[in-house]
């Protein structure tokens, strides 16, 4: 785990008791007995049935399974974009179930970074502005003006780290690999404790995909970020510290 003080200390009251219990890292993100149902007409489909998962600092976990097995649903639940029908998502010791939408948004901003298969970059903004966006979400105008230089330095450094050079370009002018680098840099802007990647290499050629995954593994190792990668790529699964397979809504540990 990164021992340096976080760049964005949380004002959120987080329970501290479970940390470093028995010398082991406490999971930064947990799903406990999570169920998620969807209605298909009158029929109730159980996509996730009692799934429990823990993401630890500095570990890369691969989540595999067939299309429609509920991988993205689990990722969205872990990322607080969705709410489970049963069970609980616990972010850094804080149960998220009863939090307001505003508090969940706050936790998402400060603790969780997303990398999407389809990048989801904001087309009107430059590369640099896209990377800066989580910081803009975190700041009011006053704080932004006061800390703009610090954020700019951080964004520029991240862009360099992921190998981006054309920072004033719009996303439309970038290649798929470059766009995903922007997406990765953006996800890391506020030094999140958890990185949730939804098929991050799904739209990339093998060479570019390997570079992106190298970056993700390296960042997890050096910054202690807990990473969950949803993937169909067996190569990525083999490199991951642990592999979870979703099958008919149930989670099995393969590695």
């Amino acid at each position, binding site marked *: 785990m990164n021992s340096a003080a976080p760049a964005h200390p949380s004002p959120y009251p987080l329970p501290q008791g479970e940390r470093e219990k028995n010398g082991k890292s406490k999971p930064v993100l947990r799903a406990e007995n999570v169920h998620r149902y969807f209605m298909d007409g009158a029929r109730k489909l159980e996509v996730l049935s009692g799934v429990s998962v823990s993401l630890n600092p500095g570990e890369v976990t691969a989540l595999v399974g067939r299309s429609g097995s509920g991988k993205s649903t689990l990722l*969205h639940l872990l*990322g607080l*974009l*969705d709410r489970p029908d049963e069970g609980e998502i616990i972010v850094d010791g804080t149960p998220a179930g009863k939090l307001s*939408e*505003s508090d969940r*948004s*706050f936790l*998402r*901003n*400060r603790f969780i970074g*997303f990398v*999407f298969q389809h990048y*989801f*970059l*904001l*087309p*009107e*903004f430059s590369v640099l*502005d896209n990377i800066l*966006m*989580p910081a*803009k*979400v*975190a*700041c*009011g*105008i006053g*704080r*932004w003006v006061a800390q703009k230089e610090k954020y700019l330095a951080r964004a520029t450094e991240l862009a360099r780290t992921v190998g981006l050079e054309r920072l004033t370009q719009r996303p439309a002018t970038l290649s798929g690999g470059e766009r995903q680098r922007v997406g990765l840099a*953006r996800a890391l802007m506020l030094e999140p404790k958890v990185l949730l990647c939804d098929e991050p290499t799904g739209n990339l050629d093998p060479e570019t995909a390997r570079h992106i995954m190298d970056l993700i593994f390296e960042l997890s190792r050096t910054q202690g970020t807990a990473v969950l990668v949803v993937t169909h790529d067996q190569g990525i699964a083999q490199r991951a510290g642990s592999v979870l397979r979703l099958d008919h809504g149930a989670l099995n540990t393969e590695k």
Partner: protein
Amino acid sequence: MYILSVALRHLRSRSITWVASAMIAVVVVLYLLIISVLEGSKQHWMDKLQSIMAHATIGVGELAWGIQKPEQWADEIQKVDPGIRGVTIGLESPAMAIFDNARTVGTMRGIDLERELKHGRLKETLFPKDIKEFGVHEQDGRKLPGCIVGGAWRRSYGLKIGGRVTFLFSDEEGEARSRAFAIIGFFEGKNPYLETAAYVDRKYIADLIGVPGRAKTLYVWLNEPNRPDLKKVRDNLREKTRELVRREGGSPRLEEVVSVDTWQEKDNKFYLAITSENRMMRIIMGIFLALLAFIMFLIFGRLVAEKVRDIGALRAMGATPRGILACFLTQALFIGGLGLIAGLIGAFFMIHYLNGIVDFIAQTFRIDIFPGEAFGADRILTLTLPSDILIISVLTIFSALIGAYLPAMRAARLNPVECLRHE
């Protein structure tokens, strides 16, 4: 910070937002231009209507003996309302005016000139300006009292200062009387009825008619003739006048014949027509603004539909539903604000150069857009009230926000997962 950032970036990069701003600007220009022309026209007609007419007129025409102590009444009437600037005294009599080369029917108005010049509007159009008294003037060996003649007669009969007019009228007994007056000046009444008259000394004419010292009309002048409680002032004046009639020994029936009319009631239908026209046009412009809100609704509906994936991305980055709502409302505020500023500038430009533009169109296309003689003015008159600028500013911003609100609410309520799965 992202709210401002996203709103500004969407504004810059989406041509539809500029179109929306331009449409708002056009509505603002139209609103201010039309309302300014209407207000200018209203002011023009009100000025004509009001003219040199008093703001309230107290008439006791049916009291055979008239007002016996008009100065005392004037002093008491003055105390009815603190907004009364002054009270002048009149004695009107229909008369035939005989000039050197013509004769016509009009009104002989006996006034106290000093009081009239102090409180009334006569001094505004009086020519020459320095007339202080009617005086007595010698003409062809005759000593004639002075009179001030209306502009309509001056123009129609080519009258000049130093000329003569003879009035033929009846006294209180019904006997025909005539008296010649020396013309010492003219006044402009702004409307033909008021101009077909001549002012003479009241006390002199009262003696001639046979009601010495008396008057039949009191003219009340207000500090604010358009005050909203004008009718209340009228009622108070009516009550006070009846009290004065009672005190002088008048019967209850005579109390009823006291007439108190405001300047608006003197030509009630015309006044109502002008004010109704103004009000109707404001309602029509209000409909335009409602249409503007609907257009904003359509534009923002489309913007939200186009930005579903961006909304999902922002939510994933921690944007709150309220933040998403604020993004779109801020954008609407910018669009409305830009349109308003451009519209205000455009409107002031149009209003300032309106007559030049109309002349240009008239000359280029040979169209008589503004027949001045019909309006009694040689150019289009405009009056832009600060209250209208404030109203259009508030309504424009309100329309922009209200139009954008529902789509913005829809954006805020979008499920982020569905946004991220949106194709």
